[in-house]
């Protein structure tokens, strides 16, 4: 068999198979090895796919050899290739970290289940990003959702249970909305294949079921991507989950949901249906701005760093959606680039917060007093990632913000430029709460002897911190891919 031809299937099947194998083997060491190897292999596969797509255009893979639309199609184009690389890359970095971190946070007899759930979450997210079938998307969404509910509930704090329950309710409502939307589309087109749907919808976009489907899909996916004001599940879920889970979910889950939104908007409904026939631009603009400002403002007043940065994630989702609302190549480039940039930044940040948790025994601002002295590297890493969130030049965050500003300028929306930069000032405010806690207070007496994070936690975290800086200086991968994907979505460039 020619392995290169089957990369799309392997992309999802490798992590998917690692999960039951991990359960079968039960040993935590074996489970760790297995899942990590699968994640690394998946990362390698995603890189190969990305290269393949860049070289020779989109790849279609017929599962079960049934040609689409009768069978399920896997479809890799420049957007999904980038997302796959992001999701698998983050997983490949977070897993080695998880070994060191869950040792501290989880009972040993559930470790192998943790790894299994992690592998499933990865497989689910990858499945969403790669599939070309609307219902298959829902199935893999549920795989990733169910596994993330469990992963969150495994957090040490009892509030993790409530957070997971709330996420389960909100997530299931969202998923059901998506099913309703897909159902309406199916009733109207008779097909489930996304590309086929897109073709068949072209002649009948103004029909009411299609608009209703658009609304249901938007609401459903917005629940999953935590678009303001549908974000209530997110802060608690990120705050009380085990550290490795917070990092992985913060970096990937909402990003993949954004991907699904883009996929439906631009590949199924088509730009015209979404933006010309409905006031979606204005609606998304308002929600995005509200998210950027309200969530940032709320973040400033948090006492716990994990919650603080969770609210920051809601604000950053605002930036991402803002880019979509421009409905232009530049705007979409900003959105897609920010998907990647924010993922590495926030992923690195939550990994470092996990190291803080391990060292200082908590992440409240009062507890991390003086961390700049006792854990200087970790504290410095958090500051670097914080600068990335602010969008300081030289960090990844600047790049995406730059494109957002350009997109606003292209539309002649001067006032928006100022709102975008003003919201970064709110980010300065919440990042500086950490800086002052870390550098202007003496550590609590019982924590003065805390040592720097062990290598098992530090190396993965700094890999992502390094990526934040790297993507701020060399943007050929991020912006290059994002620009290609944006051009493809809007049909203005080669796919």
């Amino acid at each position, binding site marked *: 068999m020619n392995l290169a031809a089957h990369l799309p299937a392997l992309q999802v099947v490798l992590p998917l198979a690692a999960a039951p194998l991990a359960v079968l083997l039960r040993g935590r060491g074996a489970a760790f090895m297995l899942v990590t190897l699968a994640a690394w292999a998946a990362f390698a596969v995603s890189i190969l796919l990305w290269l393949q797509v860049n070289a020779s255009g989109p790849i279609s893979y017929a599962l079960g050899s049934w040609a689409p639309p009768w069978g399920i199609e896997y479809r890799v184009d420049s957007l999904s290739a980038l997302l796959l690389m992001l999701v698998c890359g983050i997983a490949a970095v977070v897993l080695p970290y998880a070994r060191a971190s869950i040792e501290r946070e989880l009972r040993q007899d559930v470790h192998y289940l943790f790894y299994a759930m992690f592998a499933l979450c990865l497989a689910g997210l990858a499945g969403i990003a790669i599939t070309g079938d609307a219902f298959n998307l829902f199935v893999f969404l549920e795989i990733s959702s169910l596994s993330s509910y469990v992963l969150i509930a495994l957090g040490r704090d009892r509030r993790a*249970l409530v957070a997971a329950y709330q996420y389960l309710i909100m997530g299931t409502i969202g998923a059901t909305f998506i099913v309703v939307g897909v159902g309406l589309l199916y009733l109207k087109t008779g097909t489930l294949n996304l590309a086929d749907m897109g073709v068949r919808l072209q002649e009948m976009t103004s029909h009411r079921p299609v608009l209703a489907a658009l609304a249901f899909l938007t609401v459903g996916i917005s629940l999953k991507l935590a678009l303001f004001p549908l974000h209530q599940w997110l802060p608690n879920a990120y705050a009380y989950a085990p550290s490795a889970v917070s990092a992985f979910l913060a970096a990937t889950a909402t990003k993949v949901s954004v991907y699904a939104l883009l996929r439906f908007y631009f590949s199924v409904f088509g730009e015209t249906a979404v933006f010309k026939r409905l006031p979606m631009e204005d609606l998304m603009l308002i929600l995005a701005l509200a998210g950027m400002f309200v969530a940032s403002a709320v973040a400033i007043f948090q006492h716990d760093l994990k919650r603080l940065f969770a609210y920051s994630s809601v604000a950053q989702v605002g930036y991402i959606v803002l880019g979509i609302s421009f409905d232009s190549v530049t705007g979409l480039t900003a959105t897609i680039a920010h998907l990647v940039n924010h993922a590495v930044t926030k992923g690195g940040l939550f990994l470092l917060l996990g190291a803080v948790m391990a060292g200082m025994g908590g992440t409240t601002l009062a507890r991390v007093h003086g961390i700049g002295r006792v854990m200087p590297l970790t504290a410095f890493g958090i500051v670097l990632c914080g600068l990335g969130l602010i969008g300081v030049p030289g960090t990844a965050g600047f790049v995406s913000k730059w494109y957002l500003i350009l997109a606003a300028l292209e539309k002649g929306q001067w006032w928006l430029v100022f709102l975008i930069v003003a919201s970064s000032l709110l980010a300065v405010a919440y990042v500086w709460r950490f800086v002052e806690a870390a550098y202007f207070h003496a550590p609590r007496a019982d924590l003065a002897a805390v040592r720097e994070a062990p290598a098992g936690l530090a190396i993965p975290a700094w890999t992502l911190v390094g990526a934040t800086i790297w993507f701020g200086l060399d943007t050929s991968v991020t912006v290059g891919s994002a620009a290609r994907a944006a051009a493809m979505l809007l049909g203005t460039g080669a796919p």
Partner: protein
Amino acid sequence: MLAHIWSHFDYWAMIFLAMAGLFIVIARGNLIKKLVGLGIFQTSVYLLYVAPGKIVGGTAPIVAEGFRVYSNPLPHVLILTAIVVGVATLALGLALVVRIREAYDSIEEDEILRRDQAPDGGGEA
């Protein structure tokens, strides 16, 4: 108009059930009742898929001699999957409820939130 309502009755029923389920999920504070509502909400969607697939006078899509008209099999397949997803979600949700009950000694949302806000309520184990 009346004919339209009658010919779309399956949709109306589906909408009513979906909204009733959604209402129970959002408005009720009991964690088990919420899950029951969630189940109804999910179940109602089965109708949206399956009902339009029915052709009056047709039979179940099991091909056999003597039948010509079959109802559409694809929605059935999709809904089979949806049912399984639904029960998986329900089971997981109930497991969470059991754990929450053990941790908080309550399964009323308001009560749980109140206990976390109490000064000694939160904290790590």
